[in-house]
């Protein structure tokens, strides 16, 4: 058990190490990213830049810089941004995490439910017009860039129809904390949730449909039908349940990546100060400490999500369970 946890942690460390070195190398290979010049400010004198370079250790060999930065990120946790100077990375990420989690959790609920409804209905109406229609709809969702859809949603809800009854409830963009303002939290997030989910509903619905259709060939489905169960029950309790396994794999990947900050465009469009927006800002500014911070956080979640998928497997598929 201890060994197993250590092994997982080791893998996590491997992933984090891999990503951080890549990020580090890419950063220093990029022209125009000289952090000293950035910190010194617009039109700073050469002397100032030179002093800053020494003070911040940018003159040291890359491995040393790497170790120091990792130490400041993980051990002393006082790593600060190059751009928003004095802004500590760790607390910022910690503060942004609930926003991203709120966004992704809500969207995940929507897209999982939506994906299931899409997949199930399409599979039940297999090869009919309804099936084709639903699958077309799903793909349209996939074809819409999320930043575009988000902007359109804003156009509708914040501008064109903001004063109509349909959207007058939509609050200003931005995040409201769940615990201090649950209603506000919910209202501000509805539209971002829907926007983010639109993409994934399509993907999940399609994949689920394919799995359901396959599951329907299985013997146990025939048994279930021979038991006199209603088609809905056969579908939901028997076919769906066994089809969820690939669904869960994908969910692990997506959820991990999104919680890790992949929802950046959604967060930017809706003014949510989550990890994604942090990442976005950091990327635009080539803010190395912040990039490292968010990326480490993201890889943590990716690995964590994969580990959780393995555990969820055990829950939904007793075949891999201990006897």
């Amino acid at each position, binding site marked *: 058990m201890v060994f197993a946890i250590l092994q997982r942690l080791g893998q996590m460390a491997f992933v984090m190490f891999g990503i951080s070195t890549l990020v580090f190398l890419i950063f220093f290979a990029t022209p125009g990213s000289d952090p000293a010049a950035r910190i010194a400010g617009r039109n700073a004198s050469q002397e100032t830049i030179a002093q800053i370079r020494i003070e911040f250790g940018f003159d040291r060999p890359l491995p040393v810089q790497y170790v120091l930065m990792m130490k400041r990120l993980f051990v002393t946790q006082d790593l600060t941004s190059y751009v928003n100077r004095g802004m500590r990375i760790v607390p910022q990420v910690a503060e942004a995490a609930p926003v991203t989690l709120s966004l992704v959790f809500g969207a995940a609920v929507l897209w999982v439910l939506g994906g299931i409804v899409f997949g199930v209905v399409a599979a039940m109406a297999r*090869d009919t017009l309804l099936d084709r229609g639903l699958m077309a709809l799903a793909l349209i969702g996939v074809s819409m860039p999320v930043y575009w859809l988000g902007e359109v949603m804003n156009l509708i809800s914040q501008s064109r129809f903001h004063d109509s009854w349909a959207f007058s409830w939509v609050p200003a963009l931005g995040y409201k904390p769940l615990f201090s303002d649950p209603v506000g939290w919910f209202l501000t997030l509805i539209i971002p949730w829907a926007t983010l989910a639109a993409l994934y509903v399509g993907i999940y619905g399609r994949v689920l449909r394919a799995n359901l259709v396959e599951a329907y060939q*299985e*013997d*146990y489905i*025939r*048994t*279930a*039908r*021979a*038991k*006199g*169960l*209603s*088609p809905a*029950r056969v579908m939901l*309790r*028997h076919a769906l*349940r*066994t089809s969820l396994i690939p669904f869960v794999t994908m969910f692990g990947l997506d959820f991990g990546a999104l919680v890790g900050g992949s929802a950046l465009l959604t967060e930017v469009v809706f003014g949510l100060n989550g990890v994604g927006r942090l990442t976005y800002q950091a990327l635009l500014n080539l803010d190395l400490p912040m990039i490292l911070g968010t990326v480490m956080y993201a890889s943590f979640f990716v690995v964590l999500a994969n580990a959780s998928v393995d555990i969820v497997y055990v829950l*939904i*598929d*007793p*075949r891999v*369970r201990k*006897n």
Partner: protein
Amino acid sequence: MQNVEKPVLLDVQGLTVSFVTDGGLVRAVDDVSFSVREGEILSIVGESGSGKSVTLLSLLGLHDPKTTSVDGAVAFRGQRILELSASAMRRIRGKEIGLISQDPMTALTPVYRIGWQIAEQIRAHEPMSARAARLRAIELLGEVGFSNPTEASERFPHQLSGGMRQRAVIAMALSCRPALLVADEPTTALDVTVQAQVLDLLLRLRKDLGLAIVLITHDMGVVSEVADKVAVMYAGRIVERGTTREIFSNPVHPYTWGLMASIPPLTGERPKRLISIGGMPPTPGSIPEGCGFQPRCRFARAECAARPPTRRIGNQSVLCVLDGEERDALRKTVLTSEEPA
């Protein structure tokens, strides 16, 4: 066997099942008729691919209506069940007619405990609390011979051995005390000791509950041990039908002869070679007009090109042109001599 003639439970007349396939319409079951009385065991034997499973599944309306056409009349307790609405059919499935499907390994949903799966069927047909249904399920598992049914009900299918799974499937099929059980090769995957347990169980249920059974099997030993009546299928048709005793002691169709002859003996002298039917079984879609067995039949003649007549000998009926003494003479040659090279 019953002394008193019980009422007919299932009556199948002219059942024909066709599949729409790549190469056009394929008739897998062709004008099949048989009937089962209450408490009777009918065994269907025959070549693999001859349409046994298809016949069974069409009784329950389990074919995909989009690719299958089912014609003929199937009367269950006098009710024409092929014409029933989907929901009425559902009330019969599992409740009146229980199905044991061919492969116990894959017949159970892998992600649910077997107790749950049995209870699910019970609750689909009877208003019952989940708890009560579970208790019933445990009771049923005990009935089919689990030594510790409570514990067994908590297991997942993959945690059971083949024999246990098959018994779980049987328990499930019996859960609503159906009047008819249709069993598709329920013991093929099992070894003889477990097979014996399962057969015992079926016989006991027949005795205790008056259960009628349609049993598909390849094992002639099983047939002779449990069946009251036998139907022999070949290439989508029932070529011979009769009581078990009649079929075993007085088979009249050349294909049945072949079947009987090819059974390896368990005692006595071991023959050098087993007798087998030469040639190849027809694939559906290429079944010859007229008698389906004709290309492999050693006694085929010109008349066989036409659809053979149905002959009756007592309770027995047979689809063959052969008749009378000629037939008996020919039979002797088959059942005693070896297959010619």
